[in-house]
């Protein structure tokens, strides 16, 4: 973690996390749609992955987002918000290890977004089961949130290849080889 990311990449991941928290705090409770936060989560996590091109960047972004949300008190704050942001990122990174160069960037992003939304919904599923909710009711709530979150996450993922192309056009992306030189 210490040597893997350059300061430039680390700062970009930090800024993405800050922007995610800032936008989330701006549109807090205004939409009233379950899963709309998955749009921002998948978009920024995947932009981090696209810009740094490294496994682990999404987990770092997730952890930083959770910490910043905890510090700034966004989304009810507290230590559990860390899990909410870190869990989808961790799941996406774990899946990325197995499919690093398997598909085109667009399809990779879509698959990662679906995985992320399932992990995001499973956090509240586990929480509901732990508080003693009926498994059937908890499963239906899990299914509904994964579908709603999944739709928003795919919408976010579809924007990522366009953003990466735009950043590349501005000559702002450094490949790993160049970064380590």
């Amino acid at each position, binding site marked *: *973690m*210490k040597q893997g990311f*350059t*300061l*430039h990449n*680390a*700062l*970009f*991941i*930090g*800024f*993405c*996390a*800050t*922007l995610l928290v*800032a*936008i989330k705090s*701006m549109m*807090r*409770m205004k939409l009233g749609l379950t899963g709309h936060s998955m749009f921002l989560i998948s978009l920024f996590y995947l*932009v981090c992955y696209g*810009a740094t091109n490294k496994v682990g960047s999404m987990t770092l972004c997730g952890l*930083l987002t959770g*910490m*910043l949300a*905890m*510090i*700034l*008190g966004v989304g*009810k*704050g*507290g*230590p*559990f*918000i860390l899990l909410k942001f870190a869990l989808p990122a961790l799941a996406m990174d774990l899946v990325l290890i197995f499919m690093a160069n398997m598909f085109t960037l667009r399809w990779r992003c879509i698959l990662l977004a679906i995985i992320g939304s399932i992990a995001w919904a499973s956090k509240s599923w586990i*929480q*509901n089961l*732990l*508080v*003693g*909710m*009926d498994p*059937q*009711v908890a499963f*239906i*709530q899990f299914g509904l949130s994964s579908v709603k979150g999944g739709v928003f996450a795919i919408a976010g993922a579809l*924007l990522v290849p*366009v*953003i990466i192309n*735009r*950043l590349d056009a*501005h000559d*702002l*992306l450094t490949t790993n080889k160049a970064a380590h030189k």
Partner: protein
Amino acid sequence: MSKRVCLKSDDSDVNNLDITMNKNLGKKSINTLSNASTNTSPNASSYKARLTESKRKRWLCGVAIIFSIVLSSSAFLVTTEQLGYLAVINLGLMIHAWICKARLKPLVKLFAIQSVITVSLYALFYGSERVLEALIVVLRIILVMLPSWWLASTQKAHHMSQVLCLFLPSKWAFVITTSIKLLPFITQEVRDIYHIQCLRGARIMPKELINPINWIELVRCVLFPLLIQLLSLSKHIAKSAQQRHFDKHSKHTHWPLS
């Protein structure tokens, strides 16, 4: 020169920079600095007092974080009979947060949404028999959320970041503090880009955003330029930090009274 303070790498660097500063400022400024150094005794005592106060608040914040984790976790673990004690403690926290002028509205809204969804689902599957069970489940969910909300509303951001920085590597602590410091800048940048794009005639005014088709335009006109701006900003900050030997030393000095 004024920007160097946050990126001091070690004492020798600080001395070098001070010497350079004195050379640049000339004799007049040297006199001013020497006068200031002779009058440091009251400043030193106030500095010590502030340092002690800062440390005390940091410890309090650390305890508050641990307390909220324990309280949130116990909402999962305690039996239904013991839930009342937990509710009383949480009520105390709620009153404390209310005295600290916290906003109760998000919590009430969450409670209302959770109650409606869970109770209606229980009623749909099991009729009115298990409504009480559903209400207990909702209460537990609220008791999980409430300590976190209390923590966020009563503790200051910089104390929490100081506690987090205790167990983070220095590079990531730097990233977090830089991100928090730049948050007003980023928010202002979002506003500026949004207003400029509105003046250009983009269909992203609040009324036009009711139509979901215009959301794509919002992303294209505001988010894309913002990400480009952020990536170039991170490049500049990384370069300027490295020019101040940020990566050269493993040990960094911090200004304690943020």
